[in-house]
């Protein structure tokens, strides 16, 4: 009994040590990034910096002078409507495909499964051409409207609705005389909320981090989003490295905050969605 307990303690200690080591090595680049952003550029490359410097205010000011926070707002202007529309269209689509029987349902479900396998960048060339035809170059529409056609999102909701939506309640609401739209908004959507939250996280992160799309569409400096901002800060404004790194740090903050709030749902979504019964 005593040896059993001792071996449990050893196992526990070894386990925590390994986990912590891995966690530290994942966080180390983050830490270096945060620290580098608070130093003077000339000091950055002179010696190793393992602790925070005192240049944060200056770097911050240089960053805002270079218009970085404009990019920040631009990114939000794209990512928020994008996320909301993705959630709206995908939750409706996924619910309809899973919980209604209608003509063409089989075809649409197969359509979703097949298109799920197409690599996302397959049509990029013609997509840019199409945006030109729509006169959408230098606007944010290309990142908001087409986002609604998110196959992955529909699939995600379809999988989730299978177990989450109680058809008995939906049926009884129908008997009470509620319209389909009202049933969806008031009864079904609350059931789908965990899936919606985790998809919102994925969608927001994807949109926030998107570099290639804005790079091909947005040609005017004042329209740039955060990733292009980071990529071009150095060349356009003669901004120092430490300032650029501070910009990177700040651009990660919204994602981490969002993740902190949604991680529980997100992990649950992965746990429920990735594993086959």
């Amino acid at each position, binding site marked *: 009994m005593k040896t059993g307990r001792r071996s449990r303690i050893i196992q526990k200690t070894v386990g925590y040590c390994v986990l912590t080591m891995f966690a530290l090595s994942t966080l180390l680049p983050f830490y270096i990034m945060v620290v580098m952003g608070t130093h003077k550029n000339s000091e950055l490359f002179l010696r190793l910096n393992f602790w925070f410097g005192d240049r944060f205010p200056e770097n911050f000011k240089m960053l805002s002078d270079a218009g970085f926070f404009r990019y920040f707002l631009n990114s939000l202007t794209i990512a928020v409507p994008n996320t909301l529309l993705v959630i709206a269209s995908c939750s409706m689509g996924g619910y309809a495909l899973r919980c*209604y029987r209608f003509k063409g349902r089989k075809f649409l479900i197969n359509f979703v499964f097949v298109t799920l396998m197409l690599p996302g960048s397959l049509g990029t060339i013609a997509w840019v051409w199409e945006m030109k035809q729509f006169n959408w170059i230098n606007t944010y529409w290309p990142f908001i409207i087409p986002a609604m056609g998110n196959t992955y999102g529909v699939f995600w909701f379809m999988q989730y609705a299978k*177990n989450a939506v109680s058809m008995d309640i939906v049926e009884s609401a129908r008997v009470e005389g509620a319209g389909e739209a009202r049933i969806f908004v008031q009864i079904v959507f609350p059931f789908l909320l965990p899936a919606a939250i985790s998809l919102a996280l994925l969608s927001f992160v994807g949109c926030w981090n998107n570099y290639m799309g804005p790079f091909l569409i947005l040609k005017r400096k004042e329209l740039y989003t955060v990733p292009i901002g980071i990529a071009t800060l150095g060349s356009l404004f003669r901004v120092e490295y430490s300032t650029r790194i501070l910009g990177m740090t700040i651009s990660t903050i919204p994602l981490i905050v969002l993740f902190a709030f949604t991680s529980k749902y997100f992990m649950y979504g992965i746990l429920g969605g990735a594993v086959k019964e």
Partner: protein
Amino acid sequence: MKTTYAEDRAVCKEGRGAADTRRPEKNGRKISGIKLAPYFFCAPFFITYCMFTLFSMVFTLAVSFTEWDGFGKMTFNGFANYLRFFDYSADPRFYQSLLNTFILVICTMPVGIFLALFLCYFLNKKLIGKKHIFRVLYYLPALMTPVAIGLLWSILFDYENGTVNKVLLALGFIKENIYWMGSAWGCRFVLSVLIVWSSFGSTVLFISSALASVSESVVEAATIDGAGPLTTYIKICMPAIRDVMVFIIITGLINSFQMYDAPVLLFSSGPSGGLPYGGTDRGCLTMLMLIMEEAFTNSHYGYASALSYGMFLVIGLFSFVSMKLMTGGEEL
């Protein structure tokens, strides 16, 4: 009102509880509502998908049979674009980028999966608490903007001023700075470290959730039969997470083909000056980087479209092969 768990989570499987619009009913108005609703619900998704994504894919296919600079007239030239990139002597870059992608996959995938399996062996133990916090920490790199990761890596692995060189010098491992990105293999190494770091979290998440679904009783039975914890892990847990492994490998493959942001920034903007597009000797030129260069730098839209479909064929082929190999020909 109290309902049982089973009632509450009534599964809306075929026929059970679902609104069957094919069934004739009397109340006319309500039926039409039920009949039309699913179409309305599906419409936003399908219309936008067909209008933008599907259209652009089909149009790209059409463009791939032409010669086009994006503005002027398209001239039909049949399979000439395809023949050009399939022919190594005409344009070696397709095969080079294919090779680069495979080298990256081979350098990163086994390492990433092995590390994740090693970690999950500890993470999924019952003794360990606070699993959630650890999973969140491991997942953080996956959130970071790839552009920022590329830039950060170019600073860390810089020749003159890089942090990695400085640390190695200070610890006495090296006498002089290593020119990490001075060769194709050096570039691949740096990019591999980047990929492993940024994709590690999601691999851990998938593997650990799959492991959590391995039935306790099977593991207990194995322990009673005298299997050690490591044997149990390899012999019982590994086969159980095969499906997830297939998923991780295929998505990893697809992502490697389509990697763009991080390598572009990694090589274009180090403090000691930029490298060629795709790294030294173009050793890290991925498929998508080649396509983007052909289309938007060289304005060879037709050729770039053909390359896109070449990429699509290769991805399809290798997803299929790896699925068959991993599952031994069985259905998933």
